[in-house]
């Protein structure tokens, strides 16, 4: 028995709806910049995927500060999608990642269906992008953002519009701020989504009692980190049996045990966001930890345990 385990060939590679990942660990959009920021800390080409900071059609300067505030086992952010625009991204930041042979997933946010479609069309022409994550759930953009992600019909439409413009795998990122996550997930699948990214941040706020006003200039921000893990797991667990496309799971993942919880809840791969801030090497450590677990348990492919916790 013991020796059998040692002989096992571990295959860490994941096909996330057409996005080929070397291992199941991606870094989440907005928490890893464009990769270069973390190059001193880990070998970014060894990551499963780098999901770059959310881009918009035109450059955006983002929200005024304060943009972040720590909360119990979490943090709120209201960056407001500061980014140089999709063209500058492709010209100035993408080449570095391509040179490093990183699996790059672009993350796009728009104010309208047309914005999304235009970005998809533009990215279709850029080589070196493995897939597109649709940020339809950013709580920090006042116009558009939130609506797309909370209405099943709009979710379907935006996915459809993007799919019409690109042959790249398309992965909408679902907002947890909804009554019925399954309906949203099904709508995304119907729209042609190749995978689902779950979850984005919970909408929250903090108040500065000395100043008697919200801490964040934007008032509301997105809650991330360990605090939200139970909610993320629950939503993935609910969605997994309801769809036939793979799920990229995330929300509070800090170590490989957390990652395994997500996988057993139904995630085919996972993303690390806030965890990068706390430990800039944690994405690499999580991949190693998953691999160790597979060896120890005699699991050849992660597929064997995706959704293993689902009670039928």
């Amino acid at each position: 028995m013991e020796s059998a385990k040692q002989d096992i060939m571990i295959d860490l590679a994941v096909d996330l709806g057409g996005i080929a990942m070397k291992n199941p660990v991606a870094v989440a959009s907005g928490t890893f910049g464009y990769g270069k920021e973390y190059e001193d800390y880990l070998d970014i080409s060894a990551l499963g995927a780098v999901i770059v900071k959310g881009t918009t059609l035109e450059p955006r300067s983002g929200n005024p500060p304060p943009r972040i505030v720590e909360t119990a086992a979490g943090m709120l952010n209201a960056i407001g999608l500061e980014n140089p625009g999709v063209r500058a991204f492709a010209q100035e930041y993408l080449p570095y990642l391509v040179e490093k042979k990183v699996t790059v997933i672009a993350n796009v946010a728009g104010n309208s269906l047309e914005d999304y479609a235009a970005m998809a069309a533009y990215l279709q022409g850029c080589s070196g992008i493995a897939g597109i994550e649709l940020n339809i759930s950013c709580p920090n953009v006042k116009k558009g953002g939130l609506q797309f992600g909370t209405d099943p019909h709009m979710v379907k439409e935006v996915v459809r519009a993007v799919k019409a413009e690109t042959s790249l795998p398309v992965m909408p990122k679902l907002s947890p701020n909804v009554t019925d996550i399954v309906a949203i997930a099904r709508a995304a699948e119907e729209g042609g989504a190749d995978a689902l990214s779950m979850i984005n941040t919970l909408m929250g706020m903090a108040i500065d009692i000395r100043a008697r006003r919200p801490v964040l200039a934007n008032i509301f921000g997105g809650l991330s980190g360990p605090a939200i893990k139970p909610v993320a797991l629950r939503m993935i667990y609910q969605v997994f049996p309801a769809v036939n496309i793979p799920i990229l799971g995330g929300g509070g993942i800090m170590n490989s045990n957390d990652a395994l919880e997500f996988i057993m809840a139904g995630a085919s791969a996972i993303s690390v966001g806030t965890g990068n801030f706390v430990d800039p090497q944690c994405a690499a450590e999580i991949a190693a930890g998953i691999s160790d677990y597979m060896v120890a348990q005699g699991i050849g492919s992660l597929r064997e345990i995706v959704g293993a916790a689902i009670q039928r």
Partner: protein
Amino acid sequence: MARLEKGIILSHRQVAPEIYSLEFAAPALAREASPGQFLQVRTSPTYDPLLRRPISLFDAEAERGVVTLLYRVVGRGTSLLTELPVDGLVDVMGPLGRGFTLPERPEKVLLVGGGMGLAPLLFLGRMLKQGGSQVKILGGAADAQRLWAGNRFERLGISFSPVTVDGSAGRQGLVAELLADWPELDQVDRIYCCGPEAMMAAVSKIAREHNIWGELSLEEHMACGVGACLGCARLLQPGDTGYVKICKDGPVFNMSEVQLFKLD
């Protein structure tokens, strides 16, 4: 190159009310750091508090391979930090950010520090002296005890002129007032300044009026510390269209770049 390190704690003690000095072994860090840079320090192994805390390099001695931090207890993170035992490990990331610009040849330099703003100036003073500059420091705090760091400057041969709010050491009042009256002000080539924003605003004004080149160090709440999260944004001038990131574009900026309008 910045790195993630666990340094063995060599000494850790309270040096003044609420102020602690934490010294740990980190040879690579001590070698590569430059003054004005900072570390992101983990204050607890649990998830509350979650984020690292930015703390300046109070001193980095390349030969001894030792880094020293000087910090004030203001909230939960810094208060947990005080519990780290000698011989234990401190988990730090760095060196981070753009530090002070050192002069290419010896100059007449004035350091101006208020409260914990003294922290990044010691390492700077050391490097300036090493480069042959003539360095003096004006240091302000609430009282004499909180000017504990003064000795450390004196030991480097940097004359320390104290100012205290309660008059318990040096002149009574604010450090910017001392600077305004500083007799040799017109011979000063450079001013490096760190402290509360109101104080840095006053110092910047004086420097501008006397046409003295100057740098100052800013603070913002941080998550990543490496320019990835875009959390530590700051508008340097009221009309600017873009935000700098304090962790990466700073924390040090030229006084001419910054218009301070946020009062502490």
